């Protein structure tokens, strides 16, 4: 062995070159285009994969080292949380309904992201993106696991945490919204996947999901969620960078890629923004202590930060997506429209709802001076009146859904917040309805894809949402009770109002026991 012991350590760039790029090879038993069959069908032209830049230059050995460090930190906090009854330190058990929505709606997406990035990594002929996708794939399964693990602690004490990650994502009506977003991306090719998830979701939108959510969790005393959230988020900077590099790489490789990339940006910006309706509602209604309004978060993270990004991409010919005009109107409405929806369908939801109290409504008026008092306060006041008379309003009929985003058709016309926005398309002799110009545009571009959508309301009516062996012709058959059973929602426990719930009673009793000697 003549290795020189005093040889200087490799620099970051050299090490990355050797341990990443240097590990690639050209296949000889099979032609490269057979080994990478998904590399060209989307129309993206790549001439030189070696031009791919990875600014983090992370090698696998360093990756394991830092990820292990993150896990150690995370589990130290989770252990402390469990040992010290951390669940009693939150502001109010009402807050946990936001966490239930996170566990059921977001954590399963982490798992799909894991699968999707594994597939993307497999399908890119270039070693740079392949290694980056591999790391992201491992990050994403870590996110799914740590989230489920952290929140399992709440499952010991509170309702609604028992079936989220396993069953509900494939079944519950509102969870089809995030699920269909990822299904749509995963069933596209690897380049579109990268724009959909790597760019639109990770770079443009993830800040809106994680940063306010985790700050909100911290503000509400939920150390378990803050810790897994920030642990996941520490990978996110790398994911965002991957998304941005991927888009720049496509645009630099061939001018013919521009229109394809632009189309995907337009589509996935809108798809992502619709999914974030749920986050808007969480920020404005579900946190007992609020960090900032949805509108404020939108302005900071989308308008300012997204604006900087699109300025930067302008040199490649990329334009800001058309849907931004509509978003500027929507930012003052969507969180309220979403909460009004969950309030009236709370019997079919796996978390509790409530009417905002007077102080909360004043906060909303102050944050939404143009819209809240005019359109939304009157709704809450009328519902309050009904509830006070013992006639709490639950909507008894299934809603019409958008064929693309799968959200009930709750959104209003861009120029008239008093009118529901109806859009429709005809395809192969059948009508398809969408909630907006954005969703209609997406449908019309690929109708063959969206006609297959698994729309929860239609599936219920087709009789596909009951437990196996259900006989709908049996005497006294109650279809909605059977749907809840199939949803794994325990009627009277997981759903309905927070006021009067088991969570509310238990939290009060346990917190009392924790602070008194009686």
């Amino acid at each position, binding site marked *: 062995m003549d290795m020189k012991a005093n040889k200087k350590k490799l620099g970051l760039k050299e090490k990355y070159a050797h341990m990443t790029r240097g590990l690639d090879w050209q296949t000889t038993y099979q032609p490269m285009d057979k080994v990478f069959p998904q590399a060209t069908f989307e129309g993206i032209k790549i001439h030189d994969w070696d031009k791919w830049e990875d600014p983090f230059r992370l090698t696998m050995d360093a990756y394991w080292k830092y990820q292990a460090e993150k896990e150690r930190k995370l589990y130290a906090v989770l252990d402390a949380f469990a040992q010290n009854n951390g669940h009693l330190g939150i502001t109010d058990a009402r807050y946990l309904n936001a966490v239930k929505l996170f566990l059921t709606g977001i954590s399963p997406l982490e798992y799909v992201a894991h699968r999707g990035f594994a597939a993307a990594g497999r399908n890119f002929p270039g070693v740079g993106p392949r290694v980056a996708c591999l790391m992201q794939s491992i990050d994403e399964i870590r996110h799914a696991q740590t989230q489920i693990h952290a929140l399992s602690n709440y499952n010991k004490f509170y309702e609604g945490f028992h079936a989220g990650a396993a069953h509900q994502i494939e079944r519950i009506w509102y969870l089809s919204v995030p699920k269909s977003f990822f299904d749509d991306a995963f069933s596209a090719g690897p380049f579109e996947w990268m724009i959909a998830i790597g760019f639109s979701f990770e770079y443009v939108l993830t800040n809106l999901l994680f940063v306010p959510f985790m700050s909100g969790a911290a503000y509400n005393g939920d150390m378990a969620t803050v810790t897994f959230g920030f642990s996941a988020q520490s990978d996110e900077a790398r994911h965002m960078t991957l998304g941005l590099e991927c888009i720049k790489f496509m645009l630099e490789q061939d001018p013919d890629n521009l229109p394809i990339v632009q189309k995907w940006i337009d589509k996935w910006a809108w798809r992502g923004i619709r999914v974030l309706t749920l986050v808007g509602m969480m920020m404005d209604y579900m946190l007992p202590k609020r960090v900032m309004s949805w509108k404020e978060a939108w302005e900071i993270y989308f308008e300012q930060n997204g604006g900087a990004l699109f300025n930067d991409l302008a040199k490649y010919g990329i334009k800001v997506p058309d849907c931004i005009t509509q978003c500027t109107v929507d930012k003052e409405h969507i969180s309220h429209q979403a909460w009004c929806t969950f309030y009236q369908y709370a019997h079919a939801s796996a978390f509790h709802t409530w009417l905002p109290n007077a102080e909360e409504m004043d906060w909303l008026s102050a944050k939404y001076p143009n819209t809240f008092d005019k359109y939304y306060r009157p*709704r809450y006041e009328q*519902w309050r009146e009904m509830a006070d008379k013992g006639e709490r309003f639950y909507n008894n*009929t299934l809603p019409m859904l958008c064929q693309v985003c799968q959200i*009930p058709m709750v959104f209003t016309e861009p120029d008239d917040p008093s*009118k529901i926005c109806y859009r429709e398309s005809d395809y192969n002799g059948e*009508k398809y309805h969408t909630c907006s110009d954005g969703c209609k545009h997406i449908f019309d571009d690929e109708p*063959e894809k969206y*006609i297959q959508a698994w*729309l929860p309301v239609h599936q219920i*009516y087709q009789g596909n949402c009951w437990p196996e062996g259900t006989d709908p012709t049996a005497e006294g058959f109650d279809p909605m009770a059977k749907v809840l059973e199939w949803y794994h929602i325990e009627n009277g426990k997981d759903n309905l109002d927070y006021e009067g719930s088991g969570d509310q009673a238990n939290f009060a009793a346990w917190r009392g026991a924790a602070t008194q000697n009686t």
Partner: protein
Amino acid sequence: MAVKALSEYNFPAADTQDKFHGNQLLYVGWDDHLMFCAPFAYCIPPSTKFSELVEKHLPHSFGRHPEWAKVDFGKAVWLKSGQPFQPDMNKTLAEQGLKHKDVLRLQTPGLNGNGTYF
């Protein structure tokens, strides 16, 4: 534009009428009444008379609204796919061309939750 795919891309629609056990879908929204967050989806036989829709199905869904009792169906305005539509109470959905997944909007001028759109 067609879906770009590795092989032929042709899959059946998920919600064709044959999957609804003899029923059809019909969507109905009541304009200016956002107590109901979205239009409703009904799954009913094409042989349903329009009068049955108006006297049975709609009241079941909309009945809890304080203004529902004030709706005068003699004066109500209907839109189908956004275009004026004149329903015949005595005809069935099928007889008046209301097809699977058609959408109706009920407009009741003068009623709008006293200006709140509730």
